[in-house]
């Protein structure tokens, strides 16, 4: 097992901690925790990427919808008004075939779309850096074509952002809970270790060992277990992402969705950080727990 190589065999432990039962189950518990945390971390990054992608795409696009019976002259006037608005880069009236293609996923290919009273759609590209007064523009367009609708996607994006923030909070909370669980398990294990090896610890004290010397034994052992669990959990998370990531394409969402690839450096940073964090949390927890417990011993 790769993890076994990470346990520093060359570091001599005076206490037989490696023979404890905790050494067998703890890495797997930590691996599960790290797996959940790492998948949560990937989800956070994925969410951030997706939101940024949607922001970039939708914030620079508007859709103007004109009633089906609008005359060509009024359509031209509306297009002219749009093109004269500061911040508007282009305004393109979709051809009936383009509109039909957009509706195809909902209506299918068999429905004779050209017989339906479909509204005229105008795809408007804007410069996101320029603030456009949408209310004034809406009123202006409505005066040209009554019952026209200008959709700037903002309300929809705001809802998505709100959902994303809640989801981020939920995932972050999950990572915090996982960290607390790792700390609790290490505290429990360290206390058991102190009780099991009390006679050897007393001997070490009588030979003049400082508390820090004894604590180092526990922290090195915990670091090894934490790293082992971290690596196993991290690798499992990577495998999950590699399997689930491409499946995102299957949803055929209307806007691009960021998906992970094995070449994404952030995936590997996440793997290393979660592994090191698991080891670090385990090591620090063991050290603090043992030092506090030893201070109570004679």
């Amino acid at each position: 097992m790769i993890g076994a190589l990470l346990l520093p065999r060359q570091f001599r432990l005076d206490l037989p901690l490696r023979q404890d039962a905790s050494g067998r189950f703890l890495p797997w518990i930590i691996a599960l925790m790290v797996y959940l945390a790492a998948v949560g971390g990937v989800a956070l990054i994925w969410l951030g990427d997706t939101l940024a992608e949607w922001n970039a795409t939708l914030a620079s696009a508007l859709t103007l919808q004109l009633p089906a019976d609008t005359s060509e002259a009024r359509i031209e006037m509306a297009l002219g008004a749009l093109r004269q608005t500061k911040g508007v880069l282009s305004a393109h009236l979709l051809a009936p075939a383009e509109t039909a293609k957009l509706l195809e996923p909902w209506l299918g290919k068999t429905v004779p779309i050209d017989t339906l009273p479909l509204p005229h759609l105008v795809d408007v590209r804007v410069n996101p850096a320029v603030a456009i007064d949408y209310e004034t523009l809406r009123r202006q367009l409505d005066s040209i074509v009554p019952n026209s609708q200008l959709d700037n996607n903002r309300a929809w994006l705001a809802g998505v952002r709100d959902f994303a923030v809640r989801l981020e909070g939920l995932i972050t909370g999950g990572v915090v809970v996982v960290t607390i669980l790792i700390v609790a398990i290490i505290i429990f294990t360290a206390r058991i270790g102190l009780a099991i090896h009390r006679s050897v610890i007393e001997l070490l004290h009588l030979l003049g060992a400082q508390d820090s010397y004894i604590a180092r034994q526990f922290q090195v052992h915990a670091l090894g277990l934490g790293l082992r669990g971290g690596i196993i959990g991290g690798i499992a998370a990577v495998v999950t992402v590699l399997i689930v990531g491409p499946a995102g394409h299957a949803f055929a969402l209307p806007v691009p969705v960021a998906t992970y690839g094995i070449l994404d450096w952030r995936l590997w940073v996440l793997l290393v950080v979660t592994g090191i964090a698991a080891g670090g949390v385990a090591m620090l927890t063991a050290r603090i727990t043992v030092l506090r417990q030893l201070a109570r011993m004679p």
Partner: protein
Amino acid sequence: MVRLENIGKRYGSDAEILRDVSLTLESGGFYFLTGVSGAGKTTLLKIIYLSVPPSQGTITLFDTKVSIVDRAGLNSLRRRIGIVFQDFRLVEHLTVRDNVALPLRIAGAPEREIRENVPELLGWMGLEGKLDVHPAQLSGGEQQRVAIARAIVRRPDLLIADEPTGNIDDEIAMLLVRVFERINKLGTTVLIATHDVAFAGQFAHRRYHLDKGELAAASAAEAVVE
């Protein structure tokens, strides 16, 4: 080197184990502490090697008043004491080599020094072929020699042995005391506890005798025999 003044010891509400014990161990001296089983010898030794605190009285070790020393200071004092426990207290999962190296590692000695000194000392103790075996694979006598090697590997200022001659015949016990005498000649103060007053009387070393938790009622001059 060691000065005990009016030491008393009682565990909870139990009867007193030690009462008003005062004694001095001079630097470089060789002492026997005698007394029947239950006289309080082991408790007195534990107080001297800082395993348990006295209920009353003061201890001065290496010119340091123990009562004013903090936890780290106590461990520093302990590092100057070598202990041969009655039950040896070898660490079962460590090899003979690592058991003996423990005090050196605790003191932060470099591994090079450990690699050189430990086999040499074990050779001197007649255990050259046992470096990499575990204590369970040794006889009682061999385990005792490992325990002695561990106690003296750092050339302690004070060596304490609790009943080292308890379960061995007189001839081997005599040889063992000769080993302690050789260590003593190197400058280490030695204190050996034994229940066998007659055995201790065969040596021209100072003796303290404990009786029911008190130093023998005889006058100090008689109790401490040159």
